[in-house]
């Protein structure tokens, strides 16, 4: 397993000018990024939707790479989304999955069949042309140039340590320094589209 921040740090040198949707890795990514306006940290607008949102971005901006850090809880809620992504097959879409086997924001209860789901195989079965899985940071680090150097869509499942939040939601420290409205406005400004 690897820590989420380590996985994101390994990705960072390969980011280039990609739009990054950090999903539930957002609270770590905001501390690492050096191109904040091309980041789309949204927190959790509604569970299960990060893949759809990132797909929409990729379809709307086909000349820009879109990198998503999804979670297994989100994708389990929307497995059918894998078939939509595979059918659309955006070549600019890079779908990473942070699999910590639990619902970390609600106290760490296991997701269904947590230890046995092979998410890379689910993606392949849904029609993704490429999918891989890593549980060691070194292996992931070595594979990143090849993963990002070829056209998407690609699905990469990463086993990460659960980093569990137990504090009541109302007393948690907000990690996102920008509102969702500001995040979208910043992105649109950066890629040169109107408000």
């Amino acid at each position, binding site marked *: 397993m690897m820590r989420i921040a380590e996985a994101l740090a390994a990705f960072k040198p390969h980011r280039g000018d990609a739009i990054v949707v950090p999903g539930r890795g957002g609270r770590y990514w905001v501390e690492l990024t050096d191109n904040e306006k091309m980041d789309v940290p949204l927190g959790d607008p*509604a569970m299960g939707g990060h893949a*759809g*949102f990132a*797909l*929409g971005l990729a*379809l*709307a901006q086909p000349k820009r790479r879109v990198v998503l850090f999804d979670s297994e809880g989100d994708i389990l809620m929307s497995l059918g989304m894998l078939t939509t992504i595979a059918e659309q097959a955006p070549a600019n879409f890079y779908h990473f999955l942070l699999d910590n086997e639990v619902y970390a924001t609600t106290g760490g209860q296991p997701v269904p069949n947590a230890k046995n789901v092979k998410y890379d195989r689910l993606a392949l079965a849904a029609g993704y042309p490429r999918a891989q899985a890593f549980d060691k940071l070194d292996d992931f680090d070595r594979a990143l140039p090849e993963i990002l150097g070829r056209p998407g869509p690609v699905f990469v499942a990463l086993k990460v340590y659960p980093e569990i939040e137990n504090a009541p939601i109302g007393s948690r420290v907000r990690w996102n320094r920008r509102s*969702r409205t500001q995040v979208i406005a910043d992105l649109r400004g950066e890629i040169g589209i109107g408000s």
Partner: protein
Amino acid sequence: MAEASTVALSPETVLAEMKKNAVSHIVWLPDSETNWLYLLMKAEPSLTLVGVSREGHACSIASGLAAGGARPMILIQNTGLQESGDSLRGWLLGMNVGVVIMVGYRGWTRHGVTTDTAATYTEPFINAYGLSYYLAENDADAPRISVAFEEAEKSKRPVVVLVGDEYHGFNR
């Protein structure tokens, strides 16, 4: 057939409204109203069809499309709209997405006797989310679709067009 054109919302009319309003992507799940419309949309080069397997997915996809500068429209049935509640809340209302959701009004009778619970709960559901909506039953109602687009763009909120024309018109 002449009668049908006056009582039905024809798929050609709906396609014309999509083109008039510069729709780029149709995010959709088929329903019993739309099979003829599907063939027309598929043949229209200005539209990209994004098929989903559960209607809530349409909300997050449309949100991403809108954020990236595209002009999506959602096309689903009232059953799927009701399934989409949390995604509608978070990905459309929460992200200020001005998108038109065209909804097949399954069970609509316009005679005051509704036996299909899909229809029973449709308007209360829409009202619970505070959404504006319009009913389109025939070609004469088609300008309401453009009104919905204008309102969605201005308010930055989703606006619903209920299609009260099941099993004829769209379906032929």
